[in-house]
């Protein structure tokens, strides 16, 4: 079983400022990691994913995340945010091994990013 912890429930920033949304995971097996974004009254849109290989992953809308195995973290970053980035962001994980429940996404509780002018 795994768990995902998002350390900040809310992050307010000013437009054009950098932002980091923190995510830590706990798992007894290797995991795949994901960041999703949810705009009001919409479903979840995949921002980026880490499956294997390079620990720095680039996604859509200028976001990137870095997988750190020793710190069991997968923090999301953007160097300069826009008003339109205001949304809820979810970190998620599922086991990477074949077999078992290697499809069952476990989500964090979400971080509300509010970008102010």
């Amino acid at each position, binding site marked *: 079983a795994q768990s995902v912890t998002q350390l900040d429930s809310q992050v307010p920033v000013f437009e054009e400022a950098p932002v980091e949304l923190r995510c830590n995971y706990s798992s007894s097996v290797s995991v795949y990691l*994901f960041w*999703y974004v949810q705009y009001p009254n*919409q*479903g*979840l849109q995949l921002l980026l*994913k880490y499956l294997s290989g390079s620990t720095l992953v680039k996604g859509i809308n200028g976001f990137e995340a870095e997988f750190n195995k020793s710190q069991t973290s997968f923090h999301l970053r953007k160097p300069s945010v826009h008003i339109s980035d205001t949304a809820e962001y979810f970190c998620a994980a599922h086991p990477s091994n074949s077999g078992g429940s290697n*499809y*069952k996404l476990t989500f964090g*509780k979400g971080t509300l990013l509010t970008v102010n002018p």
Partner: protein
Amino acid sequence: GAGVSQSPRYKVAKRGQDVALRCDPISGHVSLFWYQQALGQGPEFLTYFQNEAQLDKSGLPSDRFFAERPEGSVSTLKIQRTQQEDSAVYLCASSLEVRTPQHFGDGTRLSIL
């Protein structure tokens, strides 16, 4: 359409009524998932289908919850004798294969009065 489609978008029901929520996955996607998202929380896994086979229903909260995907495409989540604690957003996701990224619909917001 190109994405996962869910209907209705909003459903209000009185406590004790039965409800049915529909999910149209992306064409050709073998895997289909249902999640429940309570207010202010992340989604929680309910059930998983591979084609028409329900391979995992470990997340269904009670026997009042039932899901089906009879022809391996459209899926329906049914909740019988609804309770107030069933109020949540129900999200459907599909993926090409079991471990490929999941694509989510916009959800059905269920309110039980």
